[in-house]
């Protein structure tokens, strides 16, 4: 099986004044194609730093990081921007949609920064991504005309549009109620079943149970790494949840 993320002895230090903070102390992590990995841990455990480095937003102090067999650890700011554009999709806790910009245009955004995609191709791919998240009928809605769950779906469509090798979700259900959370998880499971590799940062154990593997961080190191037993099917959980009265 193809290895998408191959991290070895990864270290990240921050210098705050004269104090050096070791955010990551030599982490080894391999993620294969088709995995759905939960990254868990308390605040300050290093999981956000890990996600930033995996997402090429930040660069490690030391260690190697191969993303899709390309060493990205030593890349410059612009090279990392290009990598993010082509190989990574982000889903944030607070959606981060552009306000007063239609769902369709929001989804088109990553392709705007890829000059090899024509405007027609861009539109077609964005429509396909919105269809994949079940929002084909809301394409021209503005973010403020959509519910939280729908906004997160637009964000997921945006993360899919460039056909990335990995989708990185940072507390993607953190702002949502339980029911909507499972709806979103159901969508992620659906994408995973189609072969998408997903790395999902969360601190909710129930949510983590929807994934295939969990990695737990503490003090900058991985303290536990295990396959999820009794994996939850989010769609089934949804059926058992009481439907809210309107």
């Amino acid at each position, binding site marked *: 099986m193809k290895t998408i993320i191959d991290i070895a002895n990864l270290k990240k230090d921050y210098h705050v004044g004269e104090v050096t903070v070791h955010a990551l102390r030599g982490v080894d992590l391999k993620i294969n194609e088709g995995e759905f990995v939960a990254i868990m841990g308390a605040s300050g455990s290093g999981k956000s730093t890990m996600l*930033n480095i995996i*997402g090429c*937003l*930040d660069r490690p102090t030391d260690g190697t990081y191969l993303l899709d067999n390309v060493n990205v650890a030593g890349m410059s*700011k*612009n090279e990392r*921007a*290009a990598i*993010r*554009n*082509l190989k990574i999709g*982000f889903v*944030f806790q607070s959606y*981060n949609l*552009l306000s*007063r910009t239609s769902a369709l245009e929001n989804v088109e*955004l*990553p392709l*705007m*920064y*890829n*000059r090899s995609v024509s405007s027609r191709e861009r539109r077609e791919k964005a429509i396909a991504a919105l269809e994949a998240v079940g929002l084909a009928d809301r394409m021209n809605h503005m973010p403020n005309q959509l519910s939280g769950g729908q906004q997160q779906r637009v964000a997921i469509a*945006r993360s899919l549009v*460039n056909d990335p090798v990995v989708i990185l979700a940072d507390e993607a259900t953190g702002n949502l109620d339980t029911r909507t959370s499972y709806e979103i998880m159901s969508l992620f499971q659906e994408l995973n079943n189609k072969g998408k590799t997903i790395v999902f940062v969360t601190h909710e154990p129930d949510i983590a149970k929807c994934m295939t593997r969990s990695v737990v961080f503490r003090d900058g190191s991985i303290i536990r790494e295990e396959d999820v037993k009794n994996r939850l099917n989010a769609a089934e959980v949804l059926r058992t949840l009481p439907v809210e009265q309107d």
Partner: protein
Amino acid sequence: MNPGNLLKIAIKALKRNKMRSFLTMLGIIIGVASVITMLAIGQGSKKSIQDQIAGMGSNMLFVMPGNMRMGGVQQGSSSSQRLTVADVKAIKTECDAIVAVSPEVRSSGQAVSGNSNWPTTIYGGNEQYLEIRSWDVVSGRNITDTEAESSAKVCLVGRTVADELFGEGIDPTGETIRFQSIPFKIIGVLSKKGQNSFGQDQDDVIIAPYTTVQKRILAQTHIQSIQMSARSAEESELAQSQVEEVLRRTHKLRENEDNDFEVRSQEELATTMTSVTEILTILLGAIAGISLLVGGIGIMNIMYVSVTERTREIGLRMSVGGRSIDILLQFLIESILLSVFGGLIGIVIGFGASAIVEALTSWPISVMWSSVILAFAVCTVIGIFFGWYPARRAADLDPIDALRFE
């Protein structure tokens, strides 16, 4: 990102805050409009002075009696009697850069015709006098040199004199008027010249042969000044030095003696007069320029606000693959759009304001294309200059911090 998309994003961002964009542009609009209007006013007043000086004569030079010493006592120039008809003749034969020369004598007095009378000035000259002063005869004919030699009692009248003595618009050619009891036959009427830049009515004149004025009115042998035309404007300096040389000789001045006359050219007069308006133009332009600068600072301020407001947007754009240069250009294009669009409106208003000033003052105000191009270029530069730092700040943001920005 390609430039077309960047432009679309910038336009969209400006449209989102219409009022704010307009107020920001207002600084540039006022700045550009005032620069254009001020330069147009400056240029207009300069042109009006130049026109008037050009109307005085064609490449004119004139000699006036200068200060002189008599036994250690400085004498006023008006008391000088050093200029003579002989000087005129010497200039005529010796100075090849001079194409026309005439003596000038003048006297003030009362002109009388029938039961009307009018206080005016009589000027004496020769046949070339009108040519030198760029004056045309609209009816009748010019004075001839024969008449000048024979002290003929003929004259040309200015439009004002004709109007006052004979009635509005009447052609008095062939009539006789008296000036200080001397009868003059009117042989022609001068074209209208209007007021000069000092507010004097240039049509309030009578022109007669200089000999007639000298002998019959003033009873003097000297002349008050010499009027000349140089061959061309370029040769006026050469003509000036030639005249000076000739007059120093005819006046028998020794090496160490100062000139007892002064040679002035129309060019010199024009330069002196226009230098004042030029200083004024620079001053007005500079003040207007400062308002343009203030407008630019307004843009910078708003761009900083905009960058701060949109920090999360910047973070998002970076996280989906926007490079620093994309972010830089996005904000730079926005500020250039603000300043250039403001500049365009300012140019239109500048044209309007210039037209209004022209209507109010009747100066020949013309908006210089150079100032329009300058204003436009300055606006673009302002947009880049004042947009650069806010855009740079946006581009230098760290995507992680930007995404977390509250």
